[in-house]
């Protein structure tokens, strides 16, 4: 029997770089600069908290909203870090990663045909998840404003149908972030057009050059912002699948309604480990940051010498570099670099429209220094032909 998948799903075309992915996944002995997750193992005190939870027999469901003590710890962390108040009862929901947080927020808010504005290049899920929810995702190109959304760019993109703006900073795939005054300008347009903002700040703790500003701390934004965060990146916890969202009570309730039917709750041992991360994870985060900064500096210097053009990455662990000077497209560059020098990078077209991103590649520095260095040596040889 031939089974038809849903029309909704069929409206999402297969990714244009699936083939490239399969090629990379099937190859051994390569140096990969294509891995969007930390190379560190979760800090031991956090692992140990997870193990201890299991030892004590914490293997059950939790409340849908998540363990109260974790919500209290999140509330405490945000209040200490950003002087912002999110009540653990009404404003916080524990999710299975930032990914679930974004999906729930979209589904809780949009009606069919509502526009979701997404600055591009961006993390791959934003567009397709919005589409799956029946919304109309719409890219806002940022290439011409140094890969940062501007108030003007946003104003230009807004129509009567626009409902949601998605922000992500420090950003995947560029590492670019916003300062408070830049966010204020965006906020003004958001308010004017009555948009809701989904702010994915998963890289907030990986902000290297200036203090991170939480979007909901911008005046008048808290009531219209869903703050989405998770433990995957800062605490090197990608496999634990744990995140959280903070926002206005109505939205959080709506999200929890979907969450209770689709997910029930986040894994209990991950929730317990996440509390340890918030309470005693700071020094490990700092140590990992020091390492990322070293690598960021080294890689950007090398790429600069090799005449790559890129917006300066202020956080996360990505560099979005143009390969235009090589005469190759991002895709051609990626294929050839992989085949000829066994170094993997990701073609820029994975992160948005092919038109705007065809000349780019994304480089991750989630690899130990000596390997990074030898990957760059190989890129240098590759350019020399």
């Amino acid at each position, binding site marked *: 029997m031939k089974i038809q998948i849903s029309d909704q799903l069929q409206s999402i075309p297969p990714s244009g770089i699936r083939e490239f*992915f399969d090629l*990379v*996944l099937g*190859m051994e002995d*390569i140096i*990969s600069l*294509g*891995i*969007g*997750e930390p*190379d560190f*193992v979760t800090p031991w005190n956090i692992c140990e908290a997870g193990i201890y939870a299991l030892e004590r027999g914490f293997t059950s469901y939790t409340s849908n909203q998540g363990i109260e003590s974790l919500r209290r710890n999140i509330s405490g962390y945000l209040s200490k870090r950003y002087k912002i108040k999110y009540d653990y009862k009404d404003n916080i929901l524990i999710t299975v990663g930032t990914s679930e947080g974004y999906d729930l927020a979209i589904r809780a808010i949009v009606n069919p045909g509502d526009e979701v504005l997404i600055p591009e290049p961006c*993390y*791959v899920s934003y567009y397709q998840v919005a589409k799956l929810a029946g919304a109309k995702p719409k890219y806002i190109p940022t290439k011409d404003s140094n890969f940062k959304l501007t108030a003007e760019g946003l104003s230009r993109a807004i129509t009567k149908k626009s409902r949601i703006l998605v922000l992500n900073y420090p950003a*995947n795939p560029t590492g670019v972030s916003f300062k408070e005054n830049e966010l204020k300008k965006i906020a003004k347009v958001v308010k004017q057009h009555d948009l809701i903002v989904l702010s994915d700040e998963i890289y907030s703790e990986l902000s290297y050059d200036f203090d991170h500003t939480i979007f909901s701390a911008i005046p008048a934004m808290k009531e219209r912002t869903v703050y989405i965060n998770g433990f995957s990146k800062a605490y090197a916890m990608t*496999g634990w699948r744990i995140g959280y969202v903070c926002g206005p009570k109505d939205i959080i309730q709506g999200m929890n309604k979907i969450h209770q039917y689709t997910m029930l709750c986040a894994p209990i041992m991950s929730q317990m480990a996440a509390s340890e991360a918030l309470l005693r994870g700071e020094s490990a985060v700092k140590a990992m940051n020091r390492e990322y900064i*070293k690598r960021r*500096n*080294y890689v950007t*210097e*090398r790429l600069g010498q090799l005449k790559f053009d890129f917006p300066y990455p202020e956080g996360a662990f990505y560099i979005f570099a143009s390969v235009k000077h090589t005469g190759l497209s991002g895709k051609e560059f990626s294929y050839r670099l992989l085949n000829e020098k066994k170094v*993997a990078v*990701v073609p820029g077209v*994975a*992160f948005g429209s092919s038109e705007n991103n065809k000349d780019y590649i994304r480089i991750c520095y989630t690899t130990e*220094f*000596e390997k990074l*260095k030898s990957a760059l040596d190989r890129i240098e040889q590759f350019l020399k032909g």
Partner: protein
Amino acid sequence: MKEIIELLEQNAKLSAEDIAKILKRDVKSVKSAIGKLEQKKVILGYKAIINEDRVEGFKPVRAIVEVQVAPKRNLGFDYIAERIYKFPEVKTCYLVSGTYELLLILEGENIHEVSQFVAEKLAPLEGVRGTVTHFYLKKYKEDGVVFAAQSANSRNNITL
């Protein structure tokens, strides 16, 4: 200076060029800073971390030795410490607080050689009141480096 020391302490293989890029400084100033650190004996040398379990053939034997000593009038513990640490068999020597005074790490070709050193050279020294010898059986971790080789890598080669 401090940043350069930290970088080299973690990875002595870094070249001046690497360090210059990491710290966003020019190579010349990094080179001269390293030169000064060497000259002032802040940096005493560079060496590799060896996992001896993986070296074929020769494997030295090591022991930690607790040494109870009496301080010498006017000279404190320095006099007896020097008498002891000058032996090449003594790789490490600390003055510590607690139930004994000197903590040594000894190295020799075999157990016999190390025991003999303790019995014939160390214990009879004037001022040494007692020794307790612990032979190393297995090295799990040293100076922050884990030796038991089990680095899990579950990451896929490419993720967005």
